[in-house]
């Protein structure tokens, strides 16, 4: 298994996709939190940065990096079918369950970097605007550390979910559309209909881990009562496991033609 994971990590290192996607995640996140920070305060996009709600909204706006982590997870597995490299992959390692497990684990490990990039940018921008304006930071380093841990772990777990989804759907385009449809469509609709169900949605739950609120980007439903940190992590692990288990079942059944 270690060999299979190392191979998947090497595959990632031998193309520039990761660098490109991290750059996209960084740019997108930076743009969002700079806009939020510069338009904070009464009548703005987020409450004033002097308030806990305001600074929290900026720091927890790691959602787009998290979504791109999931997209990256999709590309790790569906890319094999897009470029027909699955043939070589399964010639080298005929145990398809092992290949999928290695992809999910590799995606989770690399996915952490999306959360890291996201939280590094949101925290830097949020604190720069707050301190730069002479305000005091409304919460301590422990809170920031908790949000950071949530952003990083959430991104890793969603990348794992993406890897399972990419293997299940196989069509890279369809899988990426499914990710965006889930994050920006289905979860928003579910959030509008039922807050109690919304907390179990993957992107909403990952966002709550990172301290997300109704002011964060993408916003969470107002009045959401988030699950505990460990509960969200367990939920995302379960979703990744479930999708991967279904993908593993279908992958072993399908012919590689």
């Amino acid at each position, binding site marked *: 298994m270690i060999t299979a994971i190392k191979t998947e990590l090497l595959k990632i290192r*031998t193309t520039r996709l990761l660098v490109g996607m991290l750059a996209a995640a960084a740019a997108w996140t930076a743009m969002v939190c700079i806009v939020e920070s510069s338009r904070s305060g009464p009548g703005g996009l987020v409450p004033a940065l002097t308030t806990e709600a305001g600074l929290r909204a900026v720091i927890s706006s790691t959602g787009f990096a998290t979504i791109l982590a999931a997209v990256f997870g999709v590309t790790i597995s569906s890319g094999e079918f897009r*470029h027909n*490299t699955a043939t070589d992959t399964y010639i*080298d390692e*005929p145990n398809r369950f092992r290949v999928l497990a290695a992809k999910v684990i590799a995606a989770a490990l690399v996915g952490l970097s999306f959360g890291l990039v996201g939280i590094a940018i949101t925290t830097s921008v949020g604190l720069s605007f707050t301190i730069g304006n002479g305000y005091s930071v409304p919460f301590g380093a422990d809170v920031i550390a908790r949000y950071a841990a949530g952003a990083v772990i959430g991104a890793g777990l969603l990348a794992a979910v993406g890897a399972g989804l990419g293997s299940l759907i196989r069509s890279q385009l369809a899988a990426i559309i499914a990710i965006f449809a889930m994050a920006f469509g289905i979860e928003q609709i579910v959030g509008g209909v039922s807050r109690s169900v919304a907390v179990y949605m993957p992107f909403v739950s990952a966002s709550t881990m990172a301290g997300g609120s109704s002011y964060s980007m993408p916003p969470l439903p107002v009045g959401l009562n988030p699950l505990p940190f460990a509960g969200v992590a367990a939920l995302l692990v379960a979703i990744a496991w479930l999708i991967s288990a279904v993908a593993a079942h279908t992958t072993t059944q399908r012919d590689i*033609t």
Partner: protein
Amino acid sequence: MAVIEIQGLTKRFGPVLAVDNLSFDINEGAVVGFLGPNGAGKTTTLRMLLGLVEPTAGTALFNGVPYRDLKDRAHQVGAMLEAAAIHPRRTPRGHLRVRAAAARLDPARIDAVLASVELTDAADRRVGQFSLGMRQRLALASALLGDPKVLLLDEPANGLDPEGVRWLREFLRELARKGCTVLVSSHVLAEVAQTVSDVVIINRGNLVTQSSLDELMACAPQPVRVRTPKAEQLRVALAGINIDARLAAPDQLEVPDSTPERVANLAAKLAIPIYECAAEPARLEDIFLDLVNGQPRDEVPR
């Protein structure tokens, strides 16, 4: 000793029977052409051998075990199935690093196989910039990475220019000299005829024949071609001894089922001048086409 054993192999894709109860063996050290027209079931057979496609029935084994159960697979079997199936953003070196890592092979082999397919100079260029011929070479390099005892090559000459085909021919000869067992598929017999020692011909998923190339050649018709200014007179004379000759041109006769000696002797008796009289070399492509078009020759081993 058979290193590849295919027994009763069958694959059905929905209503399509791609491979139908196919059986043949490949002995150690043989270089075998796996031939058949497009859609004959060659690629499906190779994919079943490698565990990529699950057979509907039958077995496909290497040294008595399925590919997935082979120990030290990369040293046992190398395969080239899809030349175009290489990530376009990777370099050849990157691609081979991945393959070597997956098979736990010594990365030092990478430079050796790149040199063997003459891709050293292009080792750090993106594969997306490669011609099909270069991709074929890289795919071959991948297959050779583990220095395998058995090589499976699926249509390796596809898309190659004449220079590339010549290079491939030399490459396969070199592998044969080293004692490697090679199963190379093609839909053009002439492409592999100068390289292989044996052939397995399939059509519509069925075995048409398995024989040595010499046996196949021996059973091929070799009509006698005669050039004479009195072609019609000679044709009538041949008909008189129950030999059906055909006028190929006003001064040319094609005489099946005879020998140059017999035709020349008859012409000498009748004082018919002969400018040219020789048996035509067997045309492998004709034999191949006759076989796959359902005109089996009785003499061909089946």
